[in-house]
């Protein structure tokens, strides 16, 4: 008990417990207590082997895994801005610029989201759910860097209230809350999330951009039949796009952390890639030359939000399929749907968001279809004996 934080917690605990002065803030206190330290409560009764890894530690692991794309995103934001406006910036200036631009997004995301979470927990007398730690981190990473802050706040509020709280909080949600926030922006304010000028900071109201400079994402360029950046460039991620989604290499680093810590399922990631490649190769084989369907299937894996979605969003342990066989079906469908949407939906090329949301909806049915035959098989076996 040498730790000063622990000492402080123990000292102020009675104030928040039953009968204490601030007992109505109990949920808030508990949230901070368990955030700072592993809870001191232990299982009562007969012994059970209990892992000290609770939901909070799992969420922290995801946040750690999100750091590589985050760091790369900071540099890329600055770099894209510098390229668009013809500025000669050094490495650190670019990173600083990206940080400076993305900080308000994170602040808004966390203040609004956690504000609602704490308020709801307080009203219901629940513990504060920690799920928003990750959602709040992901939301700014999948939004355009120039998104107006009030729209961001609105989308966060919508996602937390209608994506999560009405279903009963973390662990009960049908859809990935972060993706729901993006879907909200996409349907409510399409002009701030589509087009060529929104993916690079400052380009929307630009007056001093280099002549003829296009801020279109590689996906948009390729869909128009133009020449997209090379595979290597897209793999590294020095391209216009949402803050966190551009660099496949940084995302792969994050994927390694997720798989190593056992937080996310490698089966979902792998099957998503297989699904995308299957449809991609099929389209390549059948497509007339020159159409977007003939665009190399491999390239789809590194452009747009595919990698980010496959690693961080499709694997969300709450909204994905739970059974092992189900995970393969679920992932494969996401990958396949994503490419189908990209190729055959001229209105909106980024199919990853809608593919994941749709399969989130289907996940319980997939699980049901996997579990039912298993139960029937075991019943049969029990009956013959």
């Amino acid at each position: 008990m040498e730790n000063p934080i622990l000492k402080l917690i123990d000292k102020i605990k009675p104030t928040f417990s039953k009968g204490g002065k601030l007992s109505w803030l109990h949920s808030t206190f508990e949230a901070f207590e368990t955030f700072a330290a592993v809870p001191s409560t232990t299982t009562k009764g007969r012994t059970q082997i209990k892992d000290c890894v609770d939901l909070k530690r799992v969420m922290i692991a995801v946040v750690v895994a999100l750091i590589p794309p985050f760091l790369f995103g900071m540099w890329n934001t600055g770099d894209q801005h510098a390229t668009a406006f013809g500025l000669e910036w050094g490495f650190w200036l670019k990173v600083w610029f990206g940080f400076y631009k993305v900080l308000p997004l994170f602040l808004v995301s966390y203040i609004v989201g956690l504000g609602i979470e704490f308020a709801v927990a307080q009203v219901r007398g629940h513990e504060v759910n920690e799920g928003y730690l990750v959602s709040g981190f992901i939301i700014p990473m999948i939004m355009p860097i120039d998104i107006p802050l009030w729209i961001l706040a609105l989308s966060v509020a919508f996602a937390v209230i209608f994506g999560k709280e009405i279903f009963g909080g973390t662990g009960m949600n049908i859809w990935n809350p972060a993706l729901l926030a993006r879907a909200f922006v996409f349907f409510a304010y399409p002009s701030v999330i589509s087009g060529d000028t929104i993916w690079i900071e400052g380009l929307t109201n630009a007056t001093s951009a280099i002549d003829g400079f296009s801020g279109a994402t590689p996906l948009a360029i390729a869909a128009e039949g133009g020449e997209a950046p090379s595979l290597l460039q897209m793999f590294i991620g020095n391209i216009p796009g949402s803050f966190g989604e551009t660099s496949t290499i940084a995302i792969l680093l994050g994927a390694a952390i997720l798989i190593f810590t056992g937080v996310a399922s490698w089966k979902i990631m792998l099957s998503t890639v297989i699904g995308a490649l299957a449809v991609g190769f099929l389209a390549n084989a059948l497509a007339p030359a020159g159409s977007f369907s003939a665009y190399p299937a491999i390239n789809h894996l590194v452009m747009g939000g595919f990698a980010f979605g496959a690693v961080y969003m499709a694997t969300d342990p709450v909204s994905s399929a739970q059974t092992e066989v189900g995970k393969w079906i679920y992932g494969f469908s996401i990958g396949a749907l994503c490419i189908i949407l990209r190729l055959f939906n001229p209105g909106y090329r980024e199919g990853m968001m809608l593919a994941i949301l749709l399969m989130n909806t289907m996940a319980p049915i997939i699980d049901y279809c996997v579990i039912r035959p298993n139960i029937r098989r075991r019943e049969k076996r029990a009956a013959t004996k």
Partner: protein
Amino acid sequence: MAMDKKIFTTPILKSNPITVLVLGICSSLAVTVKLEPALVMAVSVTIVTGLSSFLISLIRKTIPNRIRIIVQLVVVAMFVILIQQILKAYAYDVSKQLSVYVGLIITNCIIMGRIEAFGLNEKPLPSLVDGLANGLGYGLILVIVAFIRELFGSGTLLGIQVIPQSFYEAGYMNNGLFIMPPMALILIGCFIWIQRIFQKEESK
């Protein structure tokens, strides 16, 4: 059954056809993008529910039980067609906006539901009141939903711009989600939510 105030008041809030009985959802998604068609729809449905309940109740003792549904349909269809023709004659623009949904009033579950549950067994006057009240309860939700959707989705009310131009210049945008049907569903869900909170407190 004597004329009871409750016949009129319950359907408007306590057993509202939309938020409690969850009837008539389809039309409330379709016609609530703008306030004007919603108002017209509310009035039309109120008239049809009231009058058809009244008429059925008048002839309730002569209707053979086995063919009562067909008789009800004929009566309801008659009123719907009347409304449709009146709208076409005097409010052509609105009737065009409402398109098939005026004709589809006939399939609105509230009307048949009220006839089956009330008009067939009660005297004509209470039936008329019950029908009107249910129509009003339906219309109330319809108008509130349309109000919110038009205000946030288009920035107008009854076609007149309400949100000042300076807002738009400051970066405000109309919310496209409010124009789409899902938002109507979410709004109605919110009403149900709010109503249940209050009714739970009442029943305690």
